[in-house]
């Protein structure tokens, strides 16, 4: 204990002149102790990733550069090491795990060869010894059949397996410190839970110190020994994980902790009358199969059933969460309903009109009743259009005079909590959360009856998630909207929806009121999902303590 592996002393990193603030990291001092997991928590833009990158000197210099401070590792200042020496430290003594394993791995090399490369560069081991070592670490990170995985290319592995490979690569040389930059953010909840458990276990076995960067206090609760909270490049608070999780001192930390969506399902106000009402949207027996062309000159086509016979109903004014991991077919179903894809079979009935299989042109009259909120706030707004035009686009297409539509856009901006002056600006001037608000305003502009939200908060920080979810909830009641909410996160589903449908491999495995499902999950998969929610025990403890 107590002995520091890495000491960061008064580190400051300057940003280029056109950035929104002069320093990404502003006078940070902290220590990573031997055999501990230190979590750095902060929202995007807090400088946590920049700080992590500066340790291994991976900053995009000269635009972003260290201006002062020391980073001491084994008595040496990493910032002053000559290039050859820092290369020996990278990968060898300090390893890094990145957020997106698909991007971090070279798609043209087998994962075995990529791991081998690291060992080859840093040691004098022979080929046979290296191979033995790779099989060993692959087994260590619980990759099934290490011998086979060795010869696989990244695209042949699942997201979780790829992240396991990244961890194996980091572990290959038994480094003293692993820097993990949001390693589970891009993964499903169930995979995230597995990876977190694995990291914790490996850390215990090998005694490696881990610097773990995250924006989610749920994850912190799962894994951290100590926590440091960052905001706008400065350290706000640090201390033992249990102290900070139970009794956060600083107001900002308290806000971050409070922003973690609660596991307590929302209170259902009216339950009985909704049943008798006629469904606004009823989906029955929808199927969608993708036929992928076999590579090269292959003749046969591979058929991938994405949605295999799904039926569900949404009553007026109600919201249903469709929960499942990536590849479960939930997004495909949403795209079929909204008419971006054509279902192969089945009926999609909105207010008595069957829309399944309609062409884009024939679908047009029904568009007004049905709008979509998209996942990626950075891709869903046309960068060359002003915000007002983006919001007014729907009404203008539907015949509202341009002037009136633009006036209405300003009102909508106020409604979603943005300054109406925002109307004249372009999307790149807004943060992710603000853009998602613009996306919501766009969906509301045509006064739809049903909104389909496809993972609308999964690209946002936890703290911003809560604001956007609250807004959605508020607007839903105000406009008496029905909503189909697609998410992989049960916490989010519990926050906004009265009902939940759990989807796996193209079929709905369990469906019911949120409270019932949380209290008594029946299907095995729902149980796994519930158990995978990060920070579950901590939340149960805190809510128990509060009562």
């Amino acid at each position, binding site marked *: 204990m107590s002995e520091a592996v890495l000491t960061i002393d008064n580190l400051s990193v300057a940003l280029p002149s056109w950035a929104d603030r002069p320093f990404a990291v502003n006078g940070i001092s902290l220590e990573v102790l031997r055999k501990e997991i230190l979590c750095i928590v902060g929202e995007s833009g807090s400088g946590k990733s920049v700080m992590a990158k500066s340790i291994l000197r991976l900053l995009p210099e000269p635009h972003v550069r260290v201006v002062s401070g020391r980073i001491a590792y084994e008595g040496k200042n990493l910032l002053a090491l000559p290039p050859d020496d820092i290369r020996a430290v990278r990968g060898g003594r300090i390893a890094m795990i990145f957020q997106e394993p698909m991007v971090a791995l070279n798609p043209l090399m087998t994962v075995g060869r990529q791991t081998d490369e690291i060992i080859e560069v840093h040691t004098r081991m022979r080929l046979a010894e290296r191979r033995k070592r790779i099989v060993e670490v692959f087994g260590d990170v619980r990759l099934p059949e290490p011998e086979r995985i060795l010869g696989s290319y990244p695209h042949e592995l699942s997201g979780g397996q790829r992240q396991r490979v990244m961890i194996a690569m980091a572990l290959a040389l038994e480094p003293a410190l692993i820097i993990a930059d949001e390693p589970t953010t891009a993964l499903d909840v169930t995979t995230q839970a597995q990876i977190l458990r694995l990291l914790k276990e490996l850390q215990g076995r090998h005694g490696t110190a881990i610097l773990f960067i995250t924006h989610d206090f749920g994850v912190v609760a799962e894994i951290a020994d100590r926590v440091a909270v960052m905001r706008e490049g400065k350290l706000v608070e640090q201390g033992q994980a249990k102290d900070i999780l139970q009794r956060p001192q600083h107001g900002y930390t308290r806000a971050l902790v409070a922003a973690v969506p609660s596991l307590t399902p929302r209170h259902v106000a009216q339950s009985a009358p909704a049943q008798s009402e006629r469904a606004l949207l009823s989906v029955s027996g929808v199927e969608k199969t993708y036929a992928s062309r076999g590579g090269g000159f292959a003749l046969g086509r591979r058929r991938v059933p994405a949605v295999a016979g799904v039926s569900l109903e949404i009553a007026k004014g109600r919201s249903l969460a469709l929960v499942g991991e990536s590849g479960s077919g939930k997004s495909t179903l949403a795209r079929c309903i909204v008419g971006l894809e054509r279902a192969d079979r089945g009926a999609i009935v909105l207010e008595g009109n069957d829309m399944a299989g309609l062409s884009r042109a024939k679908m047009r009259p029904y568009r007004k009743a049905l709008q979509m909120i998209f996942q990626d706030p950075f891709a*869903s707004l046309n960068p060359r259009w002003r915000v007002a035009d983006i919001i007014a686009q729907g009404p203008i297409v539907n015949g509202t005079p341009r002037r009136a539509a633009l006036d209405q856009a300003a009102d909508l901006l106020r409604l979603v909590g943005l300054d109406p002056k925002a109307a004249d600006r372009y999307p790149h001037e807004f943060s992710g959360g603000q853009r998602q608000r613009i996306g919501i305003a766009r969906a509301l502009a045509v006064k739809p009856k049903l909104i389909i939200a496809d993972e609308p908060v999964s690209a946002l920080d936890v703290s911003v998630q809560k604001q956007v979810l609250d807004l959605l909830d508020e607007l839903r009641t105000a406009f008496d909207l029905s909503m189909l909410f697609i998410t992989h996160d049960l916490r989010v589903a519990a926050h906004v929806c009265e009902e939940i449908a759990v989807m796996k491999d193209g079929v709905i495995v369990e469906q019911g009121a949120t409270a019932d499902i949380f209290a008594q999950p029946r299907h095995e998969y729902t149980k796994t999902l519930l158990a995978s929610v990060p920070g579950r025990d901590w939340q149960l403890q805190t809510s128990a303590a509060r009562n």
Partner: protein
Amino acid sequence: MQRFWRRFIGNPRVALSLVWLAFIVAVAAAAPLLAPTSPFAIVSRPFSPPFGDFLFGTDSLGRNLLAGLIHGARTSLLIAIIATLAAVAFGTLVGSIAGFYGGIVDDVLMRMSEFFQTIPSFIFAIVLVAILAPSAESLVIAIATVSWPPIARVVRGEVLTIKAREFVQAAIVAGQRDMAILLGQVLPNALSPLIVTGSLLVANAILIESALSFLGLGAPDLMSWGFQIGAGRAFLRDAWWLVTVPGVAILLTVLAINLVGEGLNDALNPRLRDL
């Protein structure tokens, strides 16, 4: 936008190239004023060396080389720019329709553009001019015909990626018509690679025009740089300036356009250089 200009003009190679191009364009525009007599008029004895009575001397028939150069700039630029505009217009049309609709339409249009790309472009241009009879119009047609396929490919690729973005799906969900989506949402976002490819194409067009004129397939009644080189090449050892001066003009202009195109690329896609 401001940052774009700062990055663009701030690049010294771009600034120098722009100065040169501005000079060439000014000379071309003011050609009748700068050299009022016809560039084909015989003004002195043949082969008078440079820096004598005439800045760049005279050619084998006693024509003023400088006057030819000035009028040649006009021909070269005009033909190159019109041909490029035609190629960009046609290439964009083909590429955007192919990328947006995909499937059979895409297959047919792309096979068609491949058909053009498989024929060596310069030989194809020669054949076209020979069939159409040498004139300014046939030069434009020939250059445009061999230049549009790369544009179509670039636009198609851009449209394919932009089409998959969520804001295009949002426009579909809003009920916009295909043409409105293509023109309003997709193409404006494909503009920067289009501008870069288009600007590089102008340089290529100048080269093709000069080469055709060099071979005597240029417009017979228009003076051009390629024609000057073609006429002077027999006297390379006696009168070096006849080929050197117009050659240097072509070299500098093509180089300048390429540098500007590259500068545009750097300024419009800053990620390549910054991070």
